[in-house]
């Protein structure tokens, strides 16, 4: 979706504020939000965290801090998944008579060496493009979740490397992301993206799936 989360190339966002000796968390609640989100992971909450975040109204999205967005979306997904009710969120108390579950993530599991998130399903798919080939990012504007940033759409690039096969996370009903496909680093010259005032040697590399590309 074309929303404010898609920030590449926006002006007017102010200076970058660098904080010396920045702590991992700026307040205790930030760490708790992160941990709660991870601990709820095994419950398989509905929806995608990213797409839910993108749907936060634009002014709110920009106003909120990073973990505030996480918190908002966590609540939303838990309610959707029926794990808690809005009434319970409001009161902070389990509804009388409702069952008590057993946590799916334990401290022991956390302390154990984190398992490699290795992908087990590695279907063999023929790539549509090869390294060095000129491609054009498709000019599409899906209202759902996509990983094709606006600033690349319609732009010419070259396949820099092939990362293998995975499934794009698009949520739109255009058949995008329905099937596993190759994902590539695509190199876009800065001048192709931003016009003549950009540095002639610079480039931006974006990871794009087959479905996002067409032959140039």
């Amino acid at each position, binding site marked *: 979706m074309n929303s*404010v989360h898609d920030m590449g190339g926006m002006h007017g966002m102010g200076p970058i504020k660098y904080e010396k000796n920045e702590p991992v968390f700026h307040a205790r609640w930030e760490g708790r939000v992160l941990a709660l989100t991870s601990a709820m992971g095994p419950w398989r909450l509905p929806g995608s965290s990213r797409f839910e975040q993108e749907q936060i*109204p634009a002014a709110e999205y920009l106003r909120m801090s990073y973990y505030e967005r996480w918190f908002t979306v966590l609540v939303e997904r838990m309610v959707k998944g029926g794990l808690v009710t809005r009434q319970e969120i409001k009161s902070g108390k389990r509804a009388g008579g409702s069952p008590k579950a057993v946590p799916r993530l334990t401290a022991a599991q956390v302390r154990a060496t984190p398992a490699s998130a290795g992908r087990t399903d590695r279907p063999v798919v023929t790539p549509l493009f090869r390294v060095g080939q000129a491609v054009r990012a498709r*000019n599409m504007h899906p209202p759902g979740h996509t990983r094709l940033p606006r600033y690349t759409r319609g732009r010419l690039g070259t396949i820099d490397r092939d990362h293998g096969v995975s499934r794009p996370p698009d949520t739109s009903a255009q058949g995008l992301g329905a099937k596993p496909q190759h994902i590539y680093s695509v190199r876009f010259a800065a001048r192709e993206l931003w016009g003549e005032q950009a540095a002639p040697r610079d480039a931006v590399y974006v990871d794009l799936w087959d479905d996002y590309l067409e032959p140039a």
Partner: protein
Amino acid sequence: MNGVHDMGGMHGMGAIHYEKNEPVFHARWESRVFALFRLTRAWNKWNVDVSRRQIESIPAAQYLRMSYYERWFTALGELLVASGLITRAELVKGKRARGSPKATPPITAAQVASMPSAAALARREAPVAPRFQAGQQVRARNLHPVDHTRLPRYARGKLGAIHRDHGVWAFPDAIAHFLSDKPQHVYSVRFAARELWGETASPRDAVYLDLWDDYLEPA
């Protein structure tokens, strides 16, 4: 400037709230801001593109949160201070600094009806030759100026056709900085919806944009 003001094609902005029997102003302060904005412009300390630039420079989250006249009000304060008509201290206090001179307003109630419009102020009679003809294929240039421009992001790099020539006008990217007018032709350019938005757009629809010579290149 690629700011949030450049909204064409954004998703997620919510439903359009239609108000039945909407009043011209929703509060008295809105009408006062409107009138102050119009009347202070008569000091010729800024033009419409300078004030637009000021509004566009409101930080994104604020811009989206603010109502229309709140943006005007914010920009007005900054313009008044930047132009030296008032000082920051006066703006904060709402009181004229002691000993500062008192001016005579350039526009009286009797003159209100004959104030020139923004369009009248931007029109130029300079004999500039057009670079394009009606019917000609053009491409909107892929420009990303960090400052004020009237070329929306969604049209950049896209193919269109000159629909008609509107004559010669001052160039906003220049006058927003009090630079020379850089007068040039403005055209209505037709862009097919599919060119702008891809295959899912209607095959018949089109968007017409008024674009200056400097925004266009031959296709």
